[in-house]
């Protein structure tokens, strides 16, 4: 089949619109996105904050928000794209409309970012931000878990549900900065599955869809650290 598709290539559509896209062999996931969508999604470019991956005007290292967080609470994060209106649309199609095909696309973009920025870090477990069981039955799936599974599958690392949410919280998108931080306090706990594990030797990659204030990631990391985990990194689709 290879010679046939080499002679008569089928140009697949862009992942996020219906435009046909010319693809080359051994190209990254970004080559599946048309120029228009790529421009609107705006991949995050250097210089960025060394902690939260926010785009910075100069190479000053750490952004003001991260400076206000205690060093022991900080979690290093990398994200694929900026949180633009197009990124919002992509996330809402995936998360709220339930188009689970997007997990594959977004997951591939996040894997590329992880491979570039976390090169050489020996991850042993991938986990995701959990949903409360009420929200899970409402939505039918956990978007972060699907992304984690996609990344895990492509880089060959097991995905485990280390965390669970013990109290429901309102959607983060509907809250302001202070409320986001307050609403998540003590919302997570170690799952039954993970209680049997010794998390101390593991290097954990925490996956979520959006990084806004970082409160969800920090709260999850706090729970994992309290269970003994030493090194935690995070990755999100949008920042």
């Amino acid at each position, binding site marked *: 089949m290879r010679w046939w598709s080499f002679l008569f290539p089928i140009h697949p559509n862009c992942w996020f619109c219906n435009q046909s896209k010319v693809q080359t062999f051994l190209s990254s996931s970004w080559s599946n996105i048309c120029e228009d969508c790529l421009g609107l999604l705006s991949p995050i470019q250097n210089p960025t904050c060394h902690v939260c991956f926010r785009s910075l005007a100069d190479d000053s290292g750490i952004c003001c928000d991260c400076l206000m967080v205690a060093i022991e609470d900080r979690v290093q994060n990398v994200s694929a794209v900026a949180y633009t209106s197009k990124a919002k649309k992509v996330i809402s199609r995936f998360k709220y409309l339930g188009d689970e095909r997007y997990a594959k696309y977004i997951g591939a973009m996040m894997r590329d970012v992880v491979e570039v920025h976390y090169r050489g870090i020996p991850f042993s477990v991938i986990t995701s931000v959990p949903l409360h069981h009420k929200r899970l*039955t409402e939505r*039918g799936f956990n978007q972060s878990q699907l992304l984690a599974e996609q990344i895990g599958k492509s880089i060959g690392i097991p995905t485990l549900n280390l965390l669970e949410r013990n109290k429901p919280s309102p959607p983060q998108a509907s809250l302001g900065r202070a409320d986001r931080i307050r609403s998540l306090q003590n919302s997570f706990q170690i799952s039954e599955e993970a209680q049997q594990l010794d998390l101390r030797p593991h290097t954990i990659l925490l996956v979520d869809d959006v990084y806004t204030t970082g409160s969800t990631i920090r709260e999850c990391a706090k729970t994992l650290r309290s269970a003994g985990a030493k090194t935690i990194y995070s990755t999100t689709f949008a920042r």
Partner: protein
Amino acid sequence: MKSDPLFLYRRFTGRRLLWSEIMKSLEKIDEKQLQTALEVLEEQGYVTKEPSIQTSFWAIRKKCNRCGAGSLYLEKSSCAICKERSCVYCTKCLHRGRAKSCSFIYSFQPMSQSIDFHSEPSYPLRPAQQKTLVDIQKLLHGQSRSIYVVMVAGAGKISILAALFQQLLSEQKHIFWCLPEKEVEQNLNQMKLLMPNLVKQCLDQSFVVGTKWDLLSYHQQFDVLLLDGVEVPPFFSNGALAKEGQQVQIGLPFPRNQQTSLVVHPVRLHQYPLPIPKFIHYRGLRRGLQLNKPIEPLRLFIEEIQSLNGQAWIVVPSKKDGKMVMDWIEKVMPVIKDKSRMIGEENENAEELRILFSEQKFTFLIIPHYLLKSIRIANLHLCVLFAEHSSIERKRLVEMSQLVGIHAYFPCCEVWFVGEENTNTIVQTKKEHIYLNELAKKEGYLNERA
């Protein structure tokens, strides 16, 4: 109260809804109580229940029971609700809520309700409009299940429809007026201006204005389905129409299917003939534009528009072609560079450019054919470049040609098709315009000065 079976039946009569849609419209309701109420209605035969997705080992038998999509649109997922790793969901009607193989669609049988309708004085119709109205009414009273109305743009469609709706509602008929999504609000506002009481009285289950996707949430509810500028798959209309229901399609090109009953409205409100498109054959148009060579027909068109002190759409098959024309203008005709703008994609900027164009802030708007929308400007002309392109269908060519010359102050506008090849589509479009003008003349509808 909300979980009372009678309340539920009255609320959702004639509807076809997913469990999640029912839950959403009844805020704060106990799931178990709702389940019990629906079971009671099902036992009494007021509600029928079927799985949202029809699954099978054979791909050809897989189907979304809500929108009729086949296996091409069905995706597997691991579901947190049914705990199945191969729970199938439909991606075609996803924006209306997820139809999954573990969820059901509830069809509420329609209730025979009498419509409390008081007619109001109708807007006076011209003889041509009156004839079209009578022709449609005759066919609706006959046996025809499907009626096709060819109506030229600028024919005063809203006033004809207002009179038709009045008539149908007074006959206790339920109507669905199906429009393209972007035109629902505009058409409804025009109807409200013309007949405020009609809309106020009947905008409920008896008279519904919506898109083709809204049709999917109705079950045997309507006696007349009016498809206005939209094409709807049979699956969409069959579910929403009552057993003896009729479908009226208003469209522009003549239908290929000869079996449908046909009504033709060939004249505009101002009674001037339609502008006949001119085809200009130009060999090597694309190459000429790429190499910035002088393109005689395009130069002539631009000069003519400038001499007429008018404005023009220069329509191209794609965004890429639009950029090529803009480059050509910049290099070959730099004088009109400041008078030309381009719309490449649908966004806020595009809407802003359309407003500026309608305010006559610039003269030439270069636009891909799929983004062209009706703008009411008097002295407006049209030039379609690469008119032979396969992406521009006959329907689109006819629609575009009829977007100009609508204004009574300037009914004689220029419509040019420039291409490297004269195709059957172009010939048919021209013939259709000539036929419509001849028909209007024969019927005596044309203005004597025209």
